[in-house]
């Protein structure tokens, strides 16, 4: 029924090393459950791609399994509450990262009740493949082997021939997958069958290093015990213990004898690879509706009780090491000794990537000897599983010749550390590769940002040019239309009216100044505010007067064309200057001319009547304006007392700055520009007054 192949005569991959295994310290005891810590620190970035977006707020009570943060975009995965409790912080906290920097984390205060949210098993058989993928993303399923690649993206393929299950666990010290295969074999087999169905895989190969015979045996037993006929396609293969057999490309080479070239994905060759722990979490999500809230982590090295513990995601590593009986170590490694990194502190929370924490003792991890020059012995090239030339890469990375390093396929390097392990000169080769890679990435990012900025800048220029052109066209069309229907203008009357308006403006300006000076004796705060208001009013009045003057000017200029009384003036004859005039002036002129026509058509009696009516209107408007002004001054006073000193000072400083700017503008450009600036100033002042009034109302 099940084909097994105990003695593999496999075609092995190139290179590889066999460092001391150190597995027996931690793989003899069953998986323990870690005690519930008082706090959990959950980093929002727990997968490749975008960090998750928080869905909860500080102070909220959450249940076990509740989604705390949702996936942001395709390449991202959700994060869930590992136990019930209260969210006490969402903010920067140190995360397990080689930089030791802080990143956004959700801190959960556990309440000890461990109260589950309503769990609903997912009917994945009848749901479509897209629904299953979205479900897994929302369950936060990511690759637990260490790379934390979102699993739903790996299921987004249909043409799979072989499904490779990675149980090699080639790195020394780590035994979490070993113990999981021994203790949870039936669940893993059930999970494998689910993934097989989702991918339509024809055959399944589970690769296990031959130093884990118990795990292989447990899986074989689970296969025989499984009722499904699909298990016939599963094959457990023992592969030689040779680091890094657990690398996806290396394991595919071992099991299928397929070499995955650089820049090609294994799915293109019909092979997809999953880690056993990931398979287990897929099973938990699909069969029980359980999100990824825990993982098995190996705590080993310089501790009294090395072993594997099942810990909640976010458990502070300090808590885990205390439980294991830390004997006072010189440092801690997150991950394995070959590919892991030194932890900056133990205050960080366990992430989904954390398969192992090694407490370092000076005996097991002696200080690295001094780096000697490279003698080009090429031992590293013999050990490199990616078949690169590490000594050349080292040379180029060291001399910061990144282009050349990239040409020699630096990015095919899996950073396994085999080269550094064999180097007789003790050169930390991987450190150089990591440095070169991150420099190249940074340069790429900068270039991308520069390209984006260039594109946006050029588009803005283009838009400005287009708008200018469109405006010119619009004005030309309008002017042509207007000239076509131009009518007799009533010059003297217009001038009189303009003068009247001007006088009225001046009156209102002085009127608004006098009440302001009356109130200006009260408190200092109120004093300042009223002064401000008075200044503002004066400015508005001045701007309006200027605008009126401009109007009069425009009127004076317009009749040159009008006086001819010609209805046939062609568009070509429009003076160029009129094209440049603002849209608004044109509109006003238009309106005025219409009105003028109406007045001209009136009889003398009608006209005097109209004038009287207009006068009444003006006085009414003036009264209303005075009332409004009085009203607006009052709230300003109120607000001024409550307005904090700092803000008022800020606004005053800004206004002074603005005034200076305006003065400069006026000095260097003709009246037109000054009027424009004044208008803008008036608008800003009005906005500020409105804001102050609103603030006063709010308080």
């Amino acid at each position, binding site marked *: 029924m099940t084909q097994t192949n105990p003695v593999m005569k496999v075609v092995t991959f190139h290179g590889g090393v066999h460092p001391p295994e150190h597995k027996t310290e931690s793989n003899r005891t069953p998986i323990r459950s870690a005690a519930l810590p008082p706090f959990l620190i959950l980093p929002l*970035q727990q997968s490749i791609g975008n960090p998750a977006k928080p869905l909860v707020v500080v102070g909220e009570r959450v249940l076990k399994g509740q989604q705390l943060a949702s996936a942001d975009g395709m390449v991202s995965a959700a994060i869930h509450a590992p136990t019930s409790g209260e969210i006490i912080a969402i903010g920067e906290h140190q*995360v397990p*990262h*080689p*930089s030791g*920097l*802080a*990143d956004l984390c959700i801190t959960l205060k556990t309440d000890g009740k461990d109260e589950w949210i309503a769990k609903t098993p997912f009917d994945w058989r009848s749901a479509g493949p897209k629904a299953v993928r979205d479900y897994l993303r929302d369950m936060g399923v990511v690759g637990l082997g260490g790379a934390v690649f979102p699993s739903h993206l790996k299921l987004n393929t249909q043409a799979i021939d072989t499904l490779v299950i990675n149980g090699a666990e080639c790195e020394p010290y780590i035994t979490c997958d070993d113990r999981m295969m021994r203790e949870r074999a039936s669940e893993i087999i059930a999970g494998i069958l689910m993934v097989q169905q989702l991918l339509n895989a024809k055959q399944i190969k589970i690769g296990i290093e031959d130093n884990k015979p118990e795990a292989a045996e447990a899986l074989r037993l689970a296969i025989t015990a499984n009722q499904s006929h699909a298990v016939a396609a599963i094959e457990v293969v023992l592969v030689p213990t040779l680091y890094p057999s657990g690398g996806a490309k290396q394991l595919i080479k071992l099991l299928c004898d397929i070499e995955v070239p650089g820049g090609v994905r294994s799915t293109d060759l019909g092979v997809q690879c999953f880690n056993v722990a990931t398979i287990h979490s897929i099973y938990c999500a699909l069969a029980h509706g359980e999100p990824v809230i825990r993982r098995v982590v190996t705590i080993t090295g310089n501790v009294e009780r090395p072993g594997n513990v099942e810990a909640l995601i976010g458990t502070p590593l300090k808590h885990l090491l205390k439980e294991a009986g830390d004997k006072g170590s010189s440092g801690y490694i997150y991950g394995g000794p070959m590919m892991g990194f030194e932890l900056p502190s133990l205050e960080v929370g366990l992430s989904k990537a954390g398969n192992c924490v090694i407490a370092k003792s000076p005996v097991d991890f002696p200080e690295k000897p*001094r*780096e000697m020059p490279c003698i080009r012995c090429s031992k590293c090239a013999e050990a490199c599983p990616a078949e690169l030339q590490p000594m050349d890469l080292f040379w180029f990375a060291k001399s910061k010749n990144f282009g050349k390093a990239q040409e020699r396929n630096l990015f095919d390097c899996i950073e396994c550390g085999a080269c550094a392990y064999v180097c007789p000169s003790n050169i*930390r080769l991987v*450190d*150089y590769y*990591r*440095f070169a*890679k*991150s*420099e190249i*990435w*940074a340069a790429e*990012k*900068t270039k991308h*940002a*520069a*390209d*984006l*900025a*260039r594109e*946006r*800048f*050029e*588009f*803005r*220029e283009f838009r400005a040019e287009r708008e200018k052109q469109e405006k010119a066209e619009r004005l030309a069309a309008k002017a042509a239309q207007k000239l076509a229907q131009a009518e007799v203008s009533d010059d003297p009357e217009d001038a009189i009216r303009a003068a009247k308006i001007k006088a009225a403006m001046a009156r209102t300006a002085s009127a608004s100044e006098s009440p302001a000076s009356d109130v200006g004796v009260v408190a200092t705060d109120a004093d300042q505010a009223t002064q401000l208001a008075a200044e503002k009013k004066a400015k508005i009045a001045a701007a309006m007067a200027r605008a009126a003057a401009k109007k009069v000017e425009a009127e004076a200029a317009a009749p040159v064309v009008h006086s001819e009384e010609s209805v046939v003036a062609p568009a070509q004859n429009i003076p160029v200057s009129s094209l440049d005039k603002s849209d608004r002036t044109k509109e006003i002129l238009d309106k005025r001319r219409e009105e003028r026509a109406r007045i001209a058509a009136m009889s003398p009696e009608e006209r005097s009547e109209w004038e009287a009516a207009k006068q009444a209107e003006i006085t009414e408007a003036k009264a209303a304006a005075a009332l409004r002004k009085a009203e607006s001054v009052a709230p300003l006073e109120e607000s001024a007392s409550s307005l904090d000193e700092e*803000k008022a000072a*800020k*606004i005053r*400083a*800004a*206004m002074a*700055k*603005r005034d200076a700017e305006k003065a400069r503008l006026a000095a260097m450009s003709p009246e037109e520009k000054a009027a424009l600036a004044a208008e803008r100033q008036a608008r*800003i002042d009005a*906005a*500020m007054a409105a*804001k102050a009034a609103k603030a006063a109302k709010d308080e």
Partner: protein
Amino acid sequence: MSFLLAIVLMAILALILGAVLGFAAIKFKVDEDPLVDKIDAILPQTQCGQCGFPGCKPYATAIANEEADINCCPPGGEDGIRKLAELLGKEFKPLNAENGVEKPRAVALIDEAVCIGCTLCIQACPVDAIVGAAKHLHTVIAAECTGCELCVAPCPVDCIDIVPVGTTVNNWRWRYPVIPIKVKS
């Protein structure tokens, strides 16, 4: 006679070749100076105008026409000057202090409590990285902001700050491996 024939032949040949060259000059005309694009690719595209030109492209054009020096771009920094010197075969010279000083990468941040929605910063932004409308709150799209500081001066209420980006987990880089030297006591 043969002497004449030779002259006629040469003349015909010259005419044909001239025609071919003339045609090629029109057909394969290079529209834009490729040097300008090469220089523009080195410039950081901050579009800040600190060089005295209204953008990176105009500065690149000026450099190509020998109208501007290569050390007028503070955001490009020394690294940028070195690259320009290498491209143009010129001597490296330190950044001209008149144009400003090299600063770490930064982005603009609008204090939303103070913003009055005047749109002046939107008009000033060379890369359209500020969104907002008149009398509505404005905000900066951090991913598209070049940190050119052009929006700071027009703000009537001084609510825009230029905040350095700093090092985060996402833009952190592995350091160059160094051998620590220990002093024996």
